[in-house]
């Protein structure tokens, strides 16, 4: 079985991780930020799966599946918080969340 070298996957996963990180840094909507975090996690997942294929054992893949479940839970908690904010008519903009500082 041939295919692109594992380093290509690694490069892509690193790219995803970076894109996600940049997304977190520049976006203002908490929803989009959660999305960006998901991209970061999926970047890591991709690396895990690629390495698992490379080594030919299942460890990394099992890890990746677990990560997916965890990531979903994390996002759901985030969404829950966003919904709670929406109900209390707080503007969905992380730049406005500045009561705690200093």
């Amino acid at each position, binding site marked *: 079985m041939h295919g692109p070298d*594992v380093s290509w996957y690694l490069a892509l*996963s690193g790219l995803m991780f970076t894109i996600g990180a940049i997304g977190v840094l520049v976006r203002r909507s908490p929803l989009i930020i959660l999305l960006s975090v998901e991209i970061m996690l999926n970047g*890591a997942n991709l690396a895990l799966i690629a390495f698992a294929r*490379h080594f030919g054992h299942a460890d990394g893949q099992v890890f990746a599946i677990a990560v997916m479940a*965890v990531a979903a839970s994390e996002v759901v908690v985030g969404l829950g*918080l966003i919904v*709670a904010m929406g109900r209390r008519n707080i503007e969905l903009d992380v730049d406005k*969340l500045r009561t705690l*500082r200093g």
Partner: protein
Amino acid sequence: MINKPHVDWFALSPTLALIGASGLLLLVSVLAPKRTRKPLAATIAGAAFLTALVFAIALTDKSAHGAAIVADAIFRDRWTGLAQVLIAGCGLVAVLISYGERWREEHVGEYYALLTAAGAGLVFFVSASNLMTLFLGLEWFSIALYVLCAIDIHLVGSLEAGLKYLIIGAIGSATLLFGSALVYGATGSLGFDQIAAGTHAHSGLLVGGLAMVIVGLAFKTSAAPFHMWTPDVYQGAPTPVTAFMAAATKVGALVVTARILVTAFPSEQHLWTWALAGIAIASLVVGNIAALAQRNVKRLLAYSSVSHAGFMLFAIAAANTLGARSLMYYLIPYCAMSLGAFAVVAARERELGAPVTLENLAGFGWDRPFLGVAMWVFMLGFLGFPLTGGFWGKIYVFSAVYQHGWWWLIVVGVVATMVSAVYYLAIVRSMFLRDSVELALAPVGGAPSREVALSIGVAACLVVTVGSFFAVQPLIDAAHAASRALPF
């Protein structure tokens, strides 16, 4: 035929007790009659932490020879055991502190369910023996804590704290995960022992992965410059949650940091000792200096916890048995002092119905002498004053660093301690040297009832703080036994 793992139920018992209680509490919070919910839930949570504590003590006693169990997923040894004892103890005190909090009635069951779930996650986290269990444990308690921070949704600060913690925490977790993936790629294995065995060259993958793993864990220990969430979250979260987070999370993160670095990355020691020393110095500088300007007491204590993370990272950076021993010892009084200090803040907060600042602590020491004196002791303990365990903690950390040959770290530590005296004593001063009358502070909703549960919790913390000074020898022996589980 697939090899089924042998499950050591005893080793899992603290985790199982807590997670089982968590499920039970979820059911209680919807099925039990409204009036009985609060006492019932608190009792179950308290019993669960107590059970976990007993199991953890037994487990520590019966695990003289450490081993990786359940298909090499977790460790059963005294390092894990002692950390679990500490976490379960923190949980127990946290339940006592939480009881008097004016939770909205419909959330009280969920609160305790999440608290026990976070406890279970931490207890599992400290036993992790491979990168997967490490990540799962981390996320397990983190997600529970995200919700706990935001549980009082009527406070704007609480929601904000929850969301901030979630976002930054998610980045931290993602970093840890990516680092784990890189380490996995470099060594082909997830288990700590196998990683150490499989390391040959200092490949870029491994080193990069190590950096990311360190950052992910340093985030949880709230060490600078990864600490910036800490003051905001500690301030915004409900005070009992802050108390639990400040104590138990720090235990988990530090114990695991020491474990993974020593067990999995011995050949990269030249890198991570310096990295941790740098992070620790940054934490001491940032934590202490930033604390000087704080008026909000929870925020001040948050910065103080950043600086203490620095001290405890010194112990890990020393990379010797003495360091491991001093870390374990330091955590004992530290947990007690953090929980106790936040408990006192919680008591004042309930009295005033407003955030506690240095100004409105005035006269507290004379109004509530027991809590006042307790707070005084905790502050002196943070300062490392004799008659509290904090003193031995610092002495031990310093000697570990000295043994490593880094005497200049001691200088940094001593200077940091001197600076910290300013804000710790500021708290004592505002409690005792000012009068409450001139502030005209009226307690909200009449005089607060004497909170027996909270007082018991504070008394327990006081006993541990002062007791760990006098009973230092047995505790050091226990820490010594625990540190033998790490392969130095």
